């Protein structure tokens, strides 16, 4: 005869506490932000009229005129991603705590990376427009810095998660730091790093599309101009066009990323 096994009931207290807290935070912030469901309903009519002017129909004849600013946006995203990603790789190596073990280097480095990563690209762009003037260069700078922060952080976390056995094996056969990097660390993180870079490009395309708002070049600048002149059918066309481009780039890049890792 076997004894019946009894285990204590799972404790739900923690889970319930988390759910309540999250609900409270969401409702609280909605109230705080003055979110009001009736006001939303009231504005629905106004909004639908505007949508009608934008998309019924959009101004298709405008397409040839927005190709060039769209290309500029893509270029901004490309260059910004490229520059940011290139600087990010060596920085990530220095910031990872398993390659260089001195704290005085990677603690401040991480702080800087976190700051760069958390400042929205828009804010950086306004800053650079103030410093370098209007135009795509300011946008590219903003994107490069943001990308640098993003990719450095993701990459150094990947470096810290590598299989350290491979590093030890290389050390044991007499490899110096550079060789350990080349033969044990890089092969392990290169696919991830490439994937992060492509992801950075995805994010940057979207960011680049709105950077024009602060005068940092690209399609955003055209958008802002047309909004100011209330050319809503042109605005609609720009939105559709940007949406299509972003969608295509997202699809292609996530397909590539899936194959990488």
């Amino acid at each position, binding site marked *: 005869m076997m004894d019946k096994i009894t285990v204590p009931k799972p404790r739900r207290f923690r889970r319930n506490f988390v759910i309540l807290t999250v609900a409270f935070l969401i409702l609280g912030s909605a109230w705080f932000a003055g979110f009001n469901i009736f006001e939303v309903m009231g504005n629905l009519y106004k909004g639908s009229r505007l949508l009608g002017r934008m998309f019924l129909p959009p101004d298709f004849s405008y397409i040839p005129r927005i190709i060039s600013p769209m290309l500029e946006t893509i270029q901004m995203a490309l260059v910004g991603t490229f520059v940011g990603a290139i600087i990010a790789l060596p920085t990530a190596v220095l910031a990872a705590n398993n390659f260089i073990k001195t704290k005085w280097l990677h603690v401040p480095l991480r702080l800087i990376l976190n700051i760069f990563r958390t400042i929205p690209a828009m804010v950086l762009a306004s800053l650079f427009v103030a410093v370098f003037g209007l135009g795509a260069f300011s946008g590219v700078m903003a994107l490069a810095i943001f990308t640098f922060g993003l990719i450095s952080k993701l990459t150094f976390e990947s470096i810290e998660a590598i299989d350290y056995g491979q590093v030890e*094996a290389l050390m*044991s056969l007499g490899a110096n730091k550079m060789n350990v990097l080349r033969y044990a660390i890089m092969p*392990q993180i290169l696919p991830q790093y490439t994937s992060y870079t492509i992801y950075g490009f995805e994010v940057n395309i979207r960011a680049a599309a709105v950077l024009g708002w602060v005068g940092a070049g690209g399609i955003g600048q055209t958008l802002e101009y047309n909004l100011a002149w209330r050319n809503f059918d042109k605005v609609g066309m720009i939105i559709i066009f940007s949406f299509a481009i972003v969608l295509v780039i997202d699809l292609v890049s996530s397909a590539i990323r899936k194959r990488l890792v």
Partner: protein
Amino acid sequence: MIKFLNVSKTYPNGVEALKNINLEINEGEFVAIIGLSGAGKSTLLRLINKLIDSTGGEVFFDGESVTKAKGKDLINIRRQIGMIFQGFNIVKRMSVLSNVLSGRVAYHPTWKTILGIFPEEDKQIAYRALQRVDILEKVHNRASDLSGGQQQRVAIARALAQEPKLMLADEPVASLDPITTVQVMDYLKKINEEDGITTVANLHHVDLAWNYSTRIVGVREGKVVYDEQRKDLKKSKFFADLEMVYGRPITHDEILGDE
């Protein structure tokens, strides 16, 4: 060839892994190190190529102090010592050839190895090493595509490419099935006998120690408690002696069986 002089190792967390070890290992020996989990076997092995620092005493390799070696001197010592691991630790995302060639990095200027430039004779060394462990046909495969036993053979080939004097093996077969285990042990034995490469292996299975070694060293709670030449031992006496090393009779899983 290896000499431990009053060596101790206390880890930063306070664990005294080795206590005043004195041990000498001679050229050509195949030393099996046995002992319970946590006895200090890996620690002992890793002190020989300074993967970890000792906290007392001194380790010598070929008369040179490993303990005091730094920079170029340490690299010069390490490149003469091959090491294989329980987890194989080959670089899975590289080809078999690149893995074996990486065993040569300590012989060349860094700028060349970073660019992946190795002289033709190094490639010959790599091919011969792979042939030695009968896996030359996988030379262009990705390492991750190989089975465990094959990966361990690549690891042995990488160590052979160093043209080492000494081979360290930390539980080289603990992740392998019994048949592959015998294969890998056979290769280690062959290399020891034919190339005269001194071998020190941590082994979990006492019958592997019995079948392959020329000397058996038992470690218990950070001390060497057993040290016998294999040829002086009788099997029944050896198995009875093991209680000294393990503090209890041998359990079933410490014996591999007779396949």
